[in-house]
């Protein structure tokens, strides 16, 4: 995929540099505005990360291994503009310092992989993921497809560049001077490998790493999933409301319990022989003859508006439980809303 020197004519390389330059400029302006002083450290560290993951041998089904460019992953995590800068820097370093890709072809490699790849990957990711929840499998599929589409778009552009060479650059005897194959050979030759192994490696690394991040560090996915956090919260809240409603409906189950809870006795319980027996059996035979003085005194300080979860106006104990649950939950929510608003002011 990394085009070496000698495969493209100097004029093709010049056009590729000229085509990449406006994207680099716009990306630089956009990302600088977005990141301010974080621009240089974030892009350079992510470029170093991209460089290293390009060297990973990913185990693919069938016992083979493959490399990924990480273009889909960069687009999913950083977005198309920051992603194209990070991948461009990694590609430039590969070409200049490690001879992977040509120096004259840096513009073409960056245009194909970093620019076209990032833009296509980002578009596919946004289209497929929509505003789905951060932890959803739809977002996972979107990331995988983004990587797959990004690398295949890059491969297609590369194949077209190769295929144009023999049409445009031949000597007097008809000898192709650069990449020798026409479009009819270059496109299938490039695409067969990329639609299968390379595309699958890219799908795997994008979806696999997003899956890992969903479980361990979903905040890293938040940058390119603006609606997802809200939908994640909404989804969680919907489940919470449903759980709460179910618990409220089930509150009358408490009526099935026999006796009273240990230690939750009222002063009059000590005067009632039946409840005294219950107190004694639950307290190793010890039951005070009368209600303790402190309990007697303090129990009159506050009279609950709905004693024993049974509003006096209702005859049905079960409905009283449900109503009490609703009133209690409502009060807690009201209190939380007031407290939360105050904290945010």
């Amino acid at each position, binding site marked *: 995929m990394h085009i*070496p020197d000698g495969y493209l004519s100097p004029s093709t390389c010049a056009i590729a540099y000229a085509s990449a330059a406006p994207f680099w400029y716009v990306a630089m302006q956009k990302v600088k505005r977005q990141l*301010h002083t974080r621009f240089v450290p974030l892009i350079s560290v992510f470029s170093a990360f991209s460089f290293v993951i390009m*060297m990973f041998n990913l*185990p693919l089904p069938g016992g083979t291994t493959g490399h990924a460019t990480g273009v889909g992953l960069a687009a999913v995590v950083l977005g198309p503009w920051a992603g194209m*800068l990070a991948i461009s820097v990694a590609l430039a370093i590969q070409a200049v310092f490690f*001879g992977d890709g*040509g120096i004259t072809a840096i513009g073409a490699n960056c245009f194909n992989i970093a620019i076209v790849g990032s833009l296509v990957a980002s578009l596919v990711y946004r289209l497929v993921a929509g505003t789905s929840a951060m932890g959803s499998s739809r977002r996972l599929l979107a990331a995988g497809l983004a990587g797959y589409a990004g690398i295949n778009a890059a491969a297609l552009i590369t194949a077209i560049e190769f295929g144009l060479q023999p049409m445009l650059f031949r000597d007097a005897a008809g000898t192709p001077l650069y990449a020798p194959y026409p479009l009819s050979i270059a496109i299938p030759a490039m695409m067969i490998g990329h639609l299968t192994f390379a595309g699958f490696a890219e799908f795997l690394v994008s979806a696999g790493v997003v899956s890992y991040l969903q479980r361990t560090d979903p905040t890293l996915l938040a940058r390119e999933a603006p609606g997802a956090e809200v939908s994640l919260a909404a989804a969680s809240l919907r489940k919470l409301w449903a759980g709460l409603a179910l618990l409220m409906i089930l509150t009358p189950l408490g009526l099935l319990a026999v006796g009273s809870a240990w230690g939750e006795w009222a002063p009059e319980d000590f005067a009632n022989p039946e409840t005294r027996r219950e107190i004694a059996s639950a307290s190793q035979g010890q039951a005070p003859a009368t209600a303790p003085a402190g309990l007697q005194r303090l129990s009159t300080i506050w009279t609950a508006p709905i004693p024993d979860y049974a509003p006096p106006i209702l005859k049905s104990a079960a409905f009283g439980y449900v109503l009490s649950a609703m009133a209690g939950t409502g009060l807690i929510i009201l209190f939380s809303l007031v407290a939360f608003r105050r904290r945010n002011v």
Partner: protein
Amino acid sequence: MSEGLHHLVHRRKGFLDRTLAELAHVLDRSFSAELLSTSSGLLQGIDPRVKLAGAGILILTAAASRSLWLLAAVFVVTVTLAFASHLKVRELLTLWISVLLFSGVIALPALFLTPGQPLGWGVTKQGLQAATFLLARVLATSTVGSVLVSTTPWNHLLRAMRAFRLPVVAVVLIGMTYRYIFLFIQTTMDMLEGRQSRLAGELPAKERRAMALATVGVLMSKAFELSSDIHLAMQSRGYRGEVHALDESPLRVRDWAILSILAVGSGVALWR
């Protein structure tokens, strides 16, 4: 080695070993280049700006050439300069073999698929020339690039890029990235070796994939944490988003002379 142990070692040569080997290769190559670039030699003594411009001229000459003789001349000049700068034959041979293997596979079908005057066994004259052009061009340009990097310390190369009006922010990005690549390589090697040392046998393919992807995921989390730390460290040293480069000293007469000879020579060779 017993058959069982041999089988185990053989089976374990999976993605862990291959990735570790590739990472180690990059470290090894950079270390060798760093050592050579700071030793004494013909190209080591030349201003990096001249070397960068000279390499650019040679690469452009090779890229634009329509003559196999000119491509051969670029190759011979570069190899001569490489030997005068104490580049090891083994390193050049490794480069050439890898280039010939990669581009050879691509060039080979051109012998048969390029329409033209038949030479026998399905090979055409134009096909043979096209394949030779491709291989010669790739061989010449990759040798120039390799000699440049092997004889110039990377920080000097970056300064030279700045002298050719490459935006300062691009130079800073490349420089910082280059530094952190080695940190990430080391971190990755530590992580992979840690896993490898705990493996008693071969993992199923699914778990191998999960391990590779988890490693990438952890590396990404580390990258974000690291970028935040670096950002804070830069800010604490007064960084406010603007990057500056140091002024360069002017080129000497000898540097101008080398550049002029190369430029005129290439121009004449291409024009003819």
